[in-house]
């Protein structure tokens, strides 16, 4: 278990925080940490910056992220990792598609590989880490395009050589369903599943025998298309199959 000191914690919006910490991490873009709250839980968290100082960016969701949001400069922060593979090196025109906190993951690419960023959120108030030029979609239309970020992006797919997608599984699934699968654009997904171990042994994150934590988190569209469980069902903490609402067989 590593520990570091919090350098800074910035409130990005009503419930999203970026926490930077003092640790000389060796990480590739797209990798994640298992962040531990001593005495509490350990949760997967993408690195939003991998350059010094590294940072994570998270939405307060339950008790663990709530605790993390309360850390102050100088406090200790515990983690293991970085884990997972990384985004492949892109060339040509690049697009990033982020839903919700998925932006944290693709953010680690932005400083190195400039591209168009498509961001989706429920409302204007859920947006964070915005930069000039970001293309925005909100469910309620309170900012940018009214609708999903996928609907905003899909018409433009052929404008890009590389596309990197990170967001909730139904969002990624919707891209798979809506995209012209014959496109020449190289599309990569960073996937998220319930993760207990983060190192590829507990099977809690597996989709068709592929471990999101160790074989991923980043997969090409071809790999994702082979996962016939993807977007159809996930696993609860017990390992029980739980169908995504729209795909119940």
């Amino acid at each position: 278990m590593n520990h570091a000191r919090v350098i800074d914690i910035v409130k990005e919006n009503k419930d999203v925080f970026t926490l930077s910490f003092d640790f000389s991490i060796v990480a590739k873009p797209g990798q994640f940490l298992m962040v531990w709250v001593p005495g509490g839980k350990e949760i997967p968290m993408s690195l939003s910056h991998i350059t010094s100082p590294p940072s994570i960016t998270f939405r307060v969701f339950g008790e663990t992220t709530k605790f993390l949001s309360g850390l102050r400069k100088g406090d200790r922060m515990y983690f293991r990792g970085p884990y997972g593979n990384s985004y492949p090196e892109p060339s040509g025109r690049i697009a990033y598609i982020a839903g919700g906190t998925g932006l944290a993951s693709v953010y680690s690419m932005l400083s190195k590989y400039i591209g168009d960023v498509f961001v989706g959120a429920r409302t204007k108030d859920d947006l964070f880490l915005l930069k000039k030029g970001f293309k925005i979609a909100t469910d309620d239309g309170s900012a940018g395009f009214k609708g999903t970020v996928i609907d905003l992006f899909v018409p433009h797919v052929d404008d890009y050589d590389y596309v990197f997608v990170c967001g909730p599984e139904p969002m990624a699934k919707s891209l798979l369903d809506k995209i012209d699968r014959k496109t020449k654009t190289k599309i990569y997904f960073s996937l998220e599943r319930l993760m207990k171990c983060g190192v590829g042994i507990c099977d809690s994150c597996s989709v068709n025998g592929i471990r999101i934590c160790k074989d991923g988190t980043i997969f090409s569209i071809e790999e994702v298309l082979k996962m016939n469980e993807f977007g159809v069902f996930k696993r609860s903490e017990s390992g029980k199959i739980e169908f995504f609402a729209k795909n119940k067989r």
Partner: protein
Amino acid sequence: MASITTSVGSFSLENPVILASGILDETSGSILRSLRSGAGAVVTKSIGISERKGYSTPVISEVGTGLLNAVGLSNPGIDNFVEEYKSFPEKKKTIVSIFGGNVEEFVTLAGRIEEIGFDKVELNLSCPHVKGVGSEVGQDLDMVEEIVSEIKNRTKLQVWAKLTPNVTDLIALAKASEKADAYTLINTLRATGVEIYSRKFVLSNTIGGYSGPGIKPVALRAVYDVYKETGKSIVGVGGITTWQDAIEFFLLGARAIQIGTALLYEDYSVYSKVNQGIKKYLDDEGFSKLEDIIGAMVAR
């Protein structure tokens, strides 16, 4: 090339390397992946009567000499298991691990898995970190005896009794479960770990099971003790990471071995690496088949 087929009770295996219960064997997809990657067989994660979420994270913690875990027997419960596995294609190469708090639960679980066509069961009499099941049941000689006999009487299943090493008298436990077709030795050692800067336990459950290289000397001793005393089929497990480790277990009487924590170090390539190494050793040392070295160091 030397033959590495083996048998455990009446179960014939193409190779002796089996995936241990609890590691990458919750989902049917992962079980198939292990078999495709060269495992001779796979044991499922332990299944109980009802759904259990298991402990909250952290459920694992790496230490220098192995791994601590307290996953807490998370499992979807037998109904959901049956649902997922009823048309599973590799039932003959899959041993279903079950746990329960009493004889009846074990018998029910065994019946349910036999119904859907599995023919082998491993009894988790040994998980060291969940109250009322696992090693708490597995230390009670009478209950162990009854569980094994009842399952043998009421089903046609091959039964592997997975015993706990956390006892004074392993031989007594082996004798209590002697109606089993084989012993699986060993489950994890009861252990704990500390993080000194937060002054908190590294597992949410405080106490966990210790696996990996650090437990191999204890596992070898358990296999030796039980094989010497009983001569029965033994499936050796505990800290096996390399083919050399596997050979050590065979020489002391194991007819097959299981691999768990080594998946963390070697990933899915571990099966072929270990199998290749075993073959090469047999060839180099002039043995024509694995059988020739099983128990070779134990005078019986």
